[in-house]
């Protein structure tokens, strides 16, 4: 039983890392008021570029960097439309997803079936990995998972306890007021959109270098959309994003575990639905009752222009 718990936990954490990284990125973007629904497209682009760079160079660091950067660059396209042109952010984000799907499916074809150049295997952390159960669950993972462990508190600290974080949150609440205070709204929004893309790109790199090495068409399988739901579930807080992502990973692990053991306590279809149901539940919970303590940034999705 304990053994089962250890491997369910291990698979749950492994399955949650991509969603977690993408969620962190999207939280940063949305905190500055930029809604980017292009996460799925950026993840795919990151996955493809990481796999391609891996095959071309065989260097894990370059491969991760290429995937991450590719996500960031694609996000800048959204930044241009959303910040500079002030178009509808929902449409621009959706376009980014469609663009990412189409472009990666087209450009990725020569890479299908080629042996992956880089495989980031699980690396047990000396000492920690030997802790019973906990060690198996958390400390026998891919190096990128460890990176995610570090990024969560950093991201939280950055948003809530630094001057830059304060500016980001202020821009997301009331861009005009921040502008009046002499802070460059455009620069902050571009920066945060870019950071959001980096998160999604890194998430894609995790999938194509670590989870199932090699490029496969539409390999993200909707995890980008889960990340967007998880931002709301986490009420725009990086620490709570861990809970959301782990929940998603846990459900992924459990749906197969139940079948494998032969007791389907909860139908797999229900388990698949659960992250979205819970997100809706959270949205309802934070929006009924007095105040909106856990609500999203007030200026989320609202373009800023000096002419008003």
């Amino acid at each position, binding site marked *: 039983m304990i053994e089962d718990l250890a491997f369910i936990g291990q*698979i749950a954490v492994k399955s949650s890392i991509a969603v977690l990284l993408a969620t962190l990125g999207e939280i940063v973007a949305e905190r500055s008021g930029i809604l980017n629904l292009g996460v799925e497209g950026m993840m795919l682009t990151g996955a493809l570029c990481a796999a391609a760079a891996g095959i071309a160079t065989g260097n894990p660091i370059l491969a991760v960097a290429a995937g991450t950067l590719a996500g960031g660059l694609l996000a800048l396209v959204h930044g241009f439309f959303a910040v500079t042109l002030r178009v509808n952010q929902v449409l621009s984000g959706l*376009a980014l997803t469609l663009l990412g799907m189409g472009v990666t499916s*087209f450009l990725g074809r020569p890479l299908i*079936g080629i042996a992956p150049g880089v495989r980031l295997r699980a690396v047990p952390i000396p000492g920690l990995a030997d802790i019973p159960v906990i060690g198996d669950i958390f400390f026998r993972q891919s190096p990128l998972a460890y990176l995610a462990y570090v990024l969560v508190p950093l991201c939280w600290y950055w948003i809530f306890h630094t001057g830059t974080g304060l500016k980001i949150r202020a821009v997301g609440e009331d861009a005009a007021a921040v502008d009046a205070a002499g802070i460059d709204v455009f620069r902050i929004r571009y920066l945060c959109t870019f950071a959001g893309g980096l998160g999604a790109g890194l998430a894609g790199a995790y999938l194509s270098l670590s989870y*199932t090495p090699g490029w*496969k068409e539409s390999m993200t399988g909707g995890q980008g959309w889960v990340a967007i739901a998880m931002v709301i579930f986490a009420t725009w807080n990086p620490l709570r994003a861990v809970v959301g992502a782990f929940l998603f990973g846990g459900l992924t*692990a459990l749906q*197969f575990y139940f079948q*494998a053991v032969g007791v389907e306590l909860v139908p797999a279809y229900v388990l698949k639905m659960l992250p979205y149901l819970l997100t809706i539940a959270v949205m309802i919970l934070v929006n009924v009752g007095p105040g909106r303590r856990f609500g999203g940034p007030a200026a989320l999705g609202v373009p800023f222009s000096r002419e008003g």
Partner: protein
Amino acid sequence: MNRKRTFAVSLVLMIACAGLILTGGASNADAASPKLKVAFALLWTIDDQGWTTAHYHGIEYLKEKLGDKIEVSYTEKVLAADAERVFRNYAQQGYDIIFGTTFEHMDPLLNVAKDYPDIVFEHCSGFKTAPNMGNYFARMYQGEYLAGYMAGLMGFHNVGTVATNPIPEPIRGINAFTIGLLKGLKEAGHDAKGDKVNTIVWLKAWRDPINETTLAETLVARKHDLIRQMADTPDSSVAACAAGVPAIGYGEDAARYGADCALVSSIWNWGPIYVDKVQQVMEGTWKTGEYWGGFDRNNIVLSDFHASVPEAVREKVLAEKKKLEAGEDDIFAGPLYDQQGKLMVPEGQKASDKDLLTMRWLVKGVSGSIPQ
């Protein structure tokens, strides 16, 4: 900037991107005119490493055999919603024989066949026919049976299967594999009576690389001694190899696609069917009907064995294969019991093709159920 304009700009952007996706699949046509024109609609891309790659190998074989007498075109990623348009397009361009290569192409193909009585239509894996539309399929379960037999002879008695969609084709394959597995175990002297030797977990998709990996890893963690791939992509086999557990490939040769631990794969071989059908149309002898060939007509082949498969096992498996090649298919011969021990095929009888094509029960020895 005014709202309507930005909205319009965004819309144009989206449509442009959607266009990119729709044209993601390539079309390919050879020029020349008096030759017989052959068209294929494919489910996914020709390099999907599974179902569509197998069909593409069939197309290549066809070109190799009859290349100077025919003109071949194909369209990738023909999903159900788009299928009728693709078929109608080929019909209007005067193709002589049009193939729909996945189950979902059945009704669209039938609709177009009714409007073009002079064109021959062929559908893969369905059950509907018309005077000018036949169907064809390959008896994959025979290859799965042999793979199971091999695994049994090697003593694997706790197999984990990454199953796809709970419909008759995979169910038939699971049963054939399990029947072979039990036979092999018995001959190898393992007493597997009453044991659940093959655990199945449903992916509920034909391909889903991420979940195939997760599922295979779950089965490995559950201490299954052999992972059996059924999905179109080799990822479950690859994941098993990475975890140090042998695998069995499906559809294409998994060992060629990174699963170097695959003991054997059963492979679709559509080429001979395509050559036959096209030749019949050429000679005017084509008739509608249902075609279902196995090893007897070389529509299924077995990959090379992995180096670790003992010589004695290979000989036994190949002897069994010889029987199938000679048309002696007794895989589903009674007595066969379902999981609850109910007699499904009595002694002295054999499941008919109709029974096989509508199979919705799992044989004794399988752990897992068919979701509703």
